[in-house]
């Protein structure tokens, strides 16, 4: 018994290291988890295929009032505009469990945006990124390292006259080789409707 306890004491020191290195979730400053997902048109996208470009991931759900507000105000398209399309990739990800390619295609048509909507109906990628809200934004640099995770802006209620768009500040910093000023923020919005 004593031997076992000593052995336990020795290994418990390790016990801390083991869960820490088993992290399978996205963390700012670390390589973002890779994924392969099909978009609304059936085309496959992986994070690794966009190496060398900045990638913005936007967790979305057309049924969420927060997403509706931002799409009504064209927040995402306005943010993307102004960047070199060969250097910045925008991917919307929908982890809503009952979503279908047709629903995403119809929504894309109604809202008239250009980027693909990736279908993550089993929620695996959403869980790997710890995506909790819609919208929930991630900015990944050319090397695949996650540089920003959080809200689209500092205006959860949509009431401010001038808000800070965190994704835009991150993209501006990364395209000009500066440090990202705000690397995390509290995301706001509806809960991601994962499969349960």
């Amino acid at each position, binding site marked *: 018994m004593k*031997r*076992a*306890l000593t*052995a*336990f004491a*020795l*290994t*418990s020191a*390790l*016990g801390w*290291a*083991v*869960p*820490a*290195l*088993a*992290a*399978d*979730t996205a*963390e700012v*400053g*670390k*390589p973002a*988890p*890779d*994924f*392969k*997902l099909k978009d609304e048109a059936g085309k*496959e996208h992986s*994070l*690794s295929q966009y190496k060398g470009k900045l990638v913005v991931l936007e967790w979305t759900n057309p*049924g*969420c*009032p*927060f997403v*509706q507000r931002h799409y*009504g*105000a064209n927040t995402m398209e306005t943010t993307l505009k102004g960047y070199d399309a060969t250097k910045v990739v925008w991917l919307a990800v929908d982890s809503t469990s009952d979503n279908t390619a047709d629903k995403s295609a119809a929504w894309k048509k109604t809202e008239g945006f250009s980027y693909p909507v990736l279908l*993550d109906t*089993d929620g*695996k*990628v959403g*869980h790997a990124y710890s995506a*909790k*809200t819609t919208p929930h934004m991630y900015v990944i640099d050319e090397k*695949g390292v996650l540089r920003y995770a959080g809200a689209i802006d500092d205006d959860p*209620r*949509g009431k401010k006259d001038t808000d800070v768009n965190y994704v835009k500040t991150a993209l501006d910093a990364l395209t000009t080789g500066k440090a990202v000023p705000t*690397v*995390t923020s*509290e*995301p*706001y*919005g*509806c*809960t*991601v*409707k*994962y499969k*349960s």
Partner: protein
Amino acid sequence: MTRQWRAMWAGVLLWACGAVAWAEVPASAVRSGALDEGEPRLEAALLVDATQVKPGDPFRVGVRFRMDPDWHIYWKNPGDSGLSTEVSWDTPGTTVGALRWPFPSTFRTPDGFITTHGYQKEVVLFAEAQASAQVQGALTLSAAVDALVCAERCIPAEMVLSRSVPVGPETLRDAAATASFDVFQAQVPLEGESAGHTASLTLDAPALQAGQPFTGTLTVAARDGQPPPGVEADFFVPERLAGIARVALTQEAPGRFRLEGKAEPGAAAGQAPRLKGVLRLGTAQAGFRPMELDLAMAPLEAAPPGAVAAAPAPSFAGPGPGGAALPPVAAPAESSLSLGLALLFAFLGGAILNLMPCVFPVLALKAYGFTRLVQEDRRHVGAHALAYTGGIVGTMGVLAAVVLAVRAGGAQVGWGFQFQEPLFVAAVSAVVVAFALNLFGVYQLGADGTALAGKVDASRGLARSAGEGMLAVVLATPCSAPLLGTAVGFAFAAGPLTVVATFVALGLGLALPFCALVMVPGLARRLPKPGAWMEVGKQFLGFALLGTTVWLLWVMGGLAGVDGMARLLAFLVAVALGAWLYGQSQSTEGTWRWVGRGVALVVLLGIGGVALRFEEASGRRASSVTEAQPWEETAVAAALKAGQPVFIDFTADWCLTCKFNERTVLAREDVRAAFAQHQVAFFVADWTRRDARISARLAAHGRAGVPMYLVISPSAPDRPEVLPELLTQELVIQAVERAAGRRTDAT
């Protein structure tokens, strides 16, 4: 404001105009908001606890929210998603204090992934108010409410509530409203002093590091000396804490709580986060005592340089079912275990391996060899120790080479992997039986018939010591020891040189205790002198080795069924016959001698060739622990969703440490009772035969072999706890209790 947004508000207002007022509050103080398919989900009313107010007297003003079943609004920290409820006052001539928040409920998605805090059914958010002396006629009180009401869906609600209260010579209380305020005031957390308790926090480390976990102890002491009452589920709800990614409390004893958290990866150095939130002591039966917590934690230190650069590169996995694919878990990070530390662990793990049951037969042999050796002169003793070490390290080198070769072939291997191969088990059995027969004196090892037993021949003895070293390694591999799993796991995930270095370190560790022992001067005099008893002792030890074959046969049974066991037995009989013929040949001369050896070889090869054809047995053998289910990720996920803690036993028939743990710990009454009490879902991942999924899962936790024990809490499915290789009952019960208890955490 957007189109949709505006349309929604218009709908809300239209509906509100036709709203039916509650009896005790005027119509202007009631609104319904948050329409879902035309139905309102939320009704709000402006409550005042007085029907007439005297200037200067305090009174309470608040908003009562009533939600449809299953719908909720949010606390000041909504949690992972949602939006806090806002009440802004417009009360000319009246000062209104800070908003009081009753203790919130905690909501979780079924998979425990998303946690939010808020209120269901009914709540009153209120404030203390006081009219100035100049006010005349009536007070005008207005509250602008901005709330998000959610069930599966979320609907925003914005409304303005207002009413007037006459000013008079005395304050007249409204009994119904006062009662309503009192109910919710009792749930508002008090500051430490008025709560009758004081709280103090001790962190285990002097500083926090960005992105790193931290732990500490929170102690709550009652002023009256009575131990604070116990707690119930979701007793702690943190506020949003700058610099802190997550924080949770679990009760260890009445008044003592374990704090576990993680600093935000991007947190700036120099920041000093505080532990802020609300703690609810007590039980539903004895009554609750919510109290505010606001305690200093520790300053944040900058992350060590290079921490980011050393992070593991993401591994790219092929597409899985559903089109999505993710690396199951990141590869073990080199950053957390340096090569030097890994080698030290390998060395210590090797030394500890000597205490594991699988090396016992070899130890018995060594004990015998020991009495023989210490009688010899020091030079010989040193040579034997070197030969034994050489045998061990050499075999470890071969093992490392095999590991690398198999890995180069693209297959997954792990510690003890060779026992997944029936032919290997057969070979080990043959070696063990041959060794035993040698001890019985059936034949002499490497010496001609003229050699006499008992006559110490130095060169022969050296070969024997080396052979014993080889046997020690072969028999040790199905065992794991503390530290070993981590070291080997590290090596298997690293480059070829690291693998070789780790195995060599392991071998040196394994050899160390014996070498150290024989080198102790003066021991010889304390031991019995060599003599006839040694021959008896030697033969007796032969049976210890035969005992090992019983276990090997059982392993074979798991790999290749009853037929496989029979085939192995037939082969072992051939080995025995071959050894006996060889022994006979040693005592003859000339032609007969070579004929005898030839016949021995033919018997061995003939029977071996016929017997050694193993077919994989159908069906897996159940673990020795009952109520176990085979490990399936989907079943684990289902159990976690159902709120059950999960225990996964990664085991193999050939793993003696696993079997030892199963018999002495996992199958014991106390442990079974704890499992039953906490409704633990018990899974067995059987690695007796190759299984890439299990190999991958082991690698995900930095392990290359079994045993591995994972305890997963339903509230933290992404943070399994890895138990040490050697279990104790207390250890398992505590881990299970933690996992069950974590259900009540509020992260």
